[in-house]
Structure formats: C-alpha cells, structure tokens
C-alpha cells in the first residue's frame, strides 16, 4: 500500500485524535453513532460518484436525481398526498427513476459526445424540474412505517440507514473488484483508447456506470426522505460537491484510473468527522465552512507531499 492509499486514512486518524482531545462530547459512543448516521447518505452517494470519477468523468447530477427520487418515493409509499402504499416496491421504483435519469447522462455523453460535466449538469436541472412537477406545491409526508423506521430503528447501535450505507459500500467494492463493469470503469480511467484498440466497445459500460451511479443517488434520495419524513425537492442540495470532495479527499483521482469505493469511504468519514467535530469544538458558524475548506485543502496537500517533487502533472 502506497502513501497515496494510506494518507487519507492517517489524516482521518489524526483529525479524530485532535477532536477527541479537544472535545469531551466528541469522545462519546453516541457521537460515534451520530457520525456514522450522518455519514450514511453521503457514503451511498459517494459510492455512485466514485465509479464516475474512476472513469475520469464527473457527475454533477446528484441534486436533481436525489430530488426526483425523494419526491417519487414519498408519493409512492404511504403518504399524505395520495393513496399509494407500495412500500418497498415504491422504493425500488424511485431508484429505477433515478437510474433512468443517470442513464440519460450516460446516453447524452456517448451519443451526443457532450462532456459529462455538461450532461450531468443538464440532467440535474431536468431532475429538479421533474421533482418540482411531482411536488405540485404540497409537501408529501410519508407515513410508511418501514421507511420512517430506517432512520430510527437501530441494530448493534447503528441505524438501518447506516447499515444500508455499509451494504452499499460493500456492494460497491465488490462491483469494483469483481465485475466487468467495475474493472472496465477503472480501465476507462486508465486508458480509454486502449480499450477501443482491444476491441472493447466502451459506450455501454459508460452508460451503465452512469446508470448505476444514478441508482446510488436514488437510494440516497430515498434515505434522505426516510430521515426527514418528507419528500423534498432539495433533498440532494449540496451533495454534488460534497460527494466529489469526499471522493477526492479519500484519494480517488479526478483524472480517473485511481482510487475506489474504499478510498472514497475514508473520505466520507473524514468530511463527516470534520463537520461534526467543528460544531462540537464550538467553532463559530460563520467560520465553519472556511475552516472545513482549509482542512480539506491541507489534507489533500499532505497526501500529495510524498510525490510532490516528481515532474508530475496536476490539473
């Protein structure tokens, strides 16, 4: 394992150490649970974004896709707006809608040859539009027991949502390690042109990766709905940049071909611990964003120090 791989982990340990020393509240078991719970949605979303980043593409469609899936699921399970009561089928359908939107970004990328930066930005707007349409001015509140229970029920001290996130990370890791889709995503980031020379048609795989990412965002949207007890159009606000930040902080390269789900998960924990710790240590709310930005930059800088003097390209 190179320093590039362990660097973020070390940074995580250091930051946890610092906060633990500074704040007694941070050291408690309940706070650990709290951090895991808070990291759950981001972890799922970051799983999706990691595969896209691994290909060297970028994905900004998170807010739109999450918003669309949040509203969809809220309208399909038992809620105050209509008589639907599809339960887990509703969850599946919402994820399907999200995957469809993700597929749209992928299709626009490979068919229209528009960079993913733009297709995903466009799909985000489309997703928000669809969500607003479905929202129709009245907040759908969920009364579905299973879904609301996800945020509350605990198993071994962790909420169901956290276990879902753990499962997602595991699935993500397996996909990355053991499936053609995952390995090709990795290879596309390494040398896309070589795949073509080897007779691999990369287009379906690109579309599939965006679709899978969409499904992860969709699940993220469902999880937010479960947490908030209501379907919000803004369910995914801010998750675009925070997921990319988490992935990059964890050592997944924006240029592709490096890193992976486990790296990104470390990044997610790092970012979540920071948010949590800064509140507990009592940093002024005015400064929190700034301090967080500074630490993220510092963490990445520290991770690249070992290779800094090589004649290597940074974009």
């Amino acid at each position, binding site marked *: 394992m190179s320093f590039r791989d362990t660097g973020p982990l070390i940074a995580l340990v250091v930051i946890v150490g610092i906060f633990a020393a500074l704040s007694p509240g941070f050291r408690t078991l309940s706070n650990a649970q709290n951090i895991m719970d808070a990291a759950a949605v981001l972890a799922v979303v970051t799983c999706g974004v990691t595969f896209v980043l691994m290909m060297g593409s970028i994905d900004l469609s998170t807010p739109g896709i999450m918003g669309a899936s949040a509203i969809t699921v809220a309208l399909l399970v038992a809620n105050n707006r209509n008589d639907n009561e599809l339960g887990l089928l509703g969850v599946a359908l919402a994820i399907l809608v999200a995957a469809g939107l993700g597929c749209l970004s992928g299709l626009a990328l490979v068919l229209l040859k528009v960079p993913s930066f733009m297709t995903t930005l466009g799909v985000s707007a489309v997703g928000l539009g669809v969500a607003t349409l479905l929202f129709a*001015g009245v907040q759908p509140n969920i009364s579905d027991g299973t879904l609301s229970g996800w945020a*509350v029920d605990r198993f071994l001290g962790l909420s169901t949502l956290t276990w879902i996130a753990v499962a997602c990370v595991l699935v993500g890791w397996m996909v990355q390690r053991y499936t053609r889709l995952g390995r090709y995503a990795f290879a596309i980031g390494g040398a896309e042109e070589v795949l073509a020379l080897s007779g691999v048609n990369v287009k379906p795989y690109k579309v599939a990766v965006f679709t899978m990412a969409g499904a992860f965002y969709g699940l993220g949207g469902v999880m937010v709905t479960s*947490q908030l007890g209501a379907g919000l159009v*803004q369910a995914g606000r801010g998750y675009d940049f925070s997921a990319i930040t988490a992935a990059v902080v964890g050592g997944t390269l924006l240029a592709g071909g490096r890193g992976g789900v486990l790296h990104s998960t470390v990044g997610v924990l790092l970012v979540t611990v920071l948010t949590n710790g800064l*509140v507990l240590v009592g940093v002024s709310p005015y400064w929190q964003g700034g301090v967080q930005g500074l630490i993220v930059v510092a963490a990445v800088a520290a991770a690249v120090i070992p290779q800094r003097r090589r004649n290597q390209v940074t974009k």
Partner: protein
Amino acid sequence: TEEAAGDDTGDAGAATESCDPSEVTLVGQVRNESNPYEASWLDGGDAFAEQVGLSQERLTYDGDSTRQQEQISQLLAGDTDCLVMNVLPNGDSDTPPIVEGAEEAGAFLVTQWNKPADLAVTDYDSWLSHITYDGVDSGKQIGDALAEAIGGSGGIIALQGILDTGAAKDRFAGLEESLAGNPDVELLDDQTANFSRAEALDVTKTLLTKHGEDVKGIWAANDDMALGALEALEQAGRTDVAVVGIDAVPDALTAIEDGTMTATVSSDGPWQGGIGLAIGYCVATGELAVEDIAAEDRAWYAEQFLIEQENVGDFVAPETSESDFACDNLFSRSQGAIS
C-alpha cells in the same frame, strides 16, 4: 454616453392615466415552487387574479439573488405601463435595485419580507407598499412559548436561518429579548441550519450529542428547521424536548395538533400572494391613488398569530376571501407601520 433611453418609460405619474383592468399584467415572484409556503403564495396570487378576471405570471428564481435581478430587469424591459409586481426579494440587499428598476420603468411594485431598514417606501412613487411580519416579535413570541413549555428554566438550543438575511437576524434578536425576560432559560448553543430541514436534522443530532440531557427545548427560526429538529429528536428517541418554529407550514400545524411541536407563528402565504397584487391592481386601475395611501400603510407589519395546540384548528386551512382584497379593505391586517 447618455442615460438609458431604451425603456419606454411610463413616467412616475402613471397612476393618473389609469389602466383598463383587462390590460393589467400581474406578476408574482418567489424563490421556488418547491416550497409549500411559497407555492401557496403563488396560488393566492392566482386566486386573486382569477377574481379580477386576469391571470398571474408566476416567476421563481430558485433562491438566487442574481437570477431574481436578471428576471426583474428583463421584465422591466418589456411593456411596463400596467405592470403589477408582487415580489419576495431574496434578501434585504436585493430590494433597492428592484425598487429603482420599477421606479424607472413605472411599474407598480409591492415587496414583502425583506427591505433594508433605511430605505423609505415613501421616497418612491411606483413602490406602493412593503409588507412584512415583525420578526423580532415572532422570535420573541415563540421564545416565550418555548420558555413556558419547558417550565421557565432549562437549556435550549437555537437553529438560525441563513445568516445574512434580515428575517434570521430579527428572529434571533427576538429570541434574545425573550431570553432576557426568562433569566432561567439558558441558550446552550446556536448554529445555523440555513432554513433547511436536512441541515437542521444533522445540526440538531450533533448538538443533542454535545449537550445531551441538558437540552430541554429547541428554538428554530423557521418551521422547516423545526421539523428537521423533530426528526432528529425522534431518531434520538427523545420525547422530552419542546420545539418551536415560525411560518405555520402545514406540517408544523399537524405536528402542533399532534402535540409533538409546541408553537409556531402564522404567516399567511395565500393572503400575501394576493394582497401584493391587489394593492398594485387597485392603484393601476385608478381605484386607489398612491398619494391616498397613508404613510403608515406604505411599510407595515401584517397581523400574525402565535399558534399553539389550543388554537391550531383555526389555522389548518388558511383561506382568503374576496373581501380581503377589496380596494377599500387592503390594509385591514396592518399591525402598524414598520418602525
């Protein structure tokens, strides 16, 4: 270079040559339709428009100040002779350019919620009125309700709104007033959750871990954050914490009915959406002259109510009646001029 000549500026005295009712254009502008309160505001506008046989142009700017300015300036570049705008400025600082633009173009403007304190409506002819709710008062009212709910003593935490908005500041100032009057209530922590339900959930969870059992109450600067805090409490398995908010969104009213939430303060979206257009419409059609609007009705606090469990039934379905928007009844909900 010379001054803009591009606009076919109706001069400021447009009110004198009144518009035919059918020629009036009604525009309502809010942040987005994905927020129940603001969606209901636009619906109120639609209801009024229907009442006078017109339709309302619904504009949303997604909480983006620049986009709001862009839309307004585009709007004012069109035909402005009989244009009536009922606008929710994104922040205090967004009001002056909107006002100046409307004044220059001669469009009738009513603003709500946000206005810099030193900007006087009476200095303008096209800016007919500014309506808001007294944030300090509402912040204090729910602060007091919270203090009462926790029995007059104990720790509370506060969730602030978007830090650079007047509403957030006023409401928090109201909380501070309330705290001064309830010396045994201690403010354990204040954090911003940006008026957002999701952020409030995370912040509240963190603060609950930090302060644990010391937290007896949560003061939130709006209902969305209060609802987020409620979710956090539910997830933490806490039922002993009182929560208050502001805005009277439907979910909060349900929560108050259920007893999970303590209090909120009403702001009547449908009425706000209608009244702004009504004032403009009455002036545009000549039924009301700007000069005849009393100075205290140019910038005023609208009536608001503290909603608790005992009176929540009266507010569950806010309704507007035609009489609310009659030209001689426009200012009936005034609680006095903004000081």
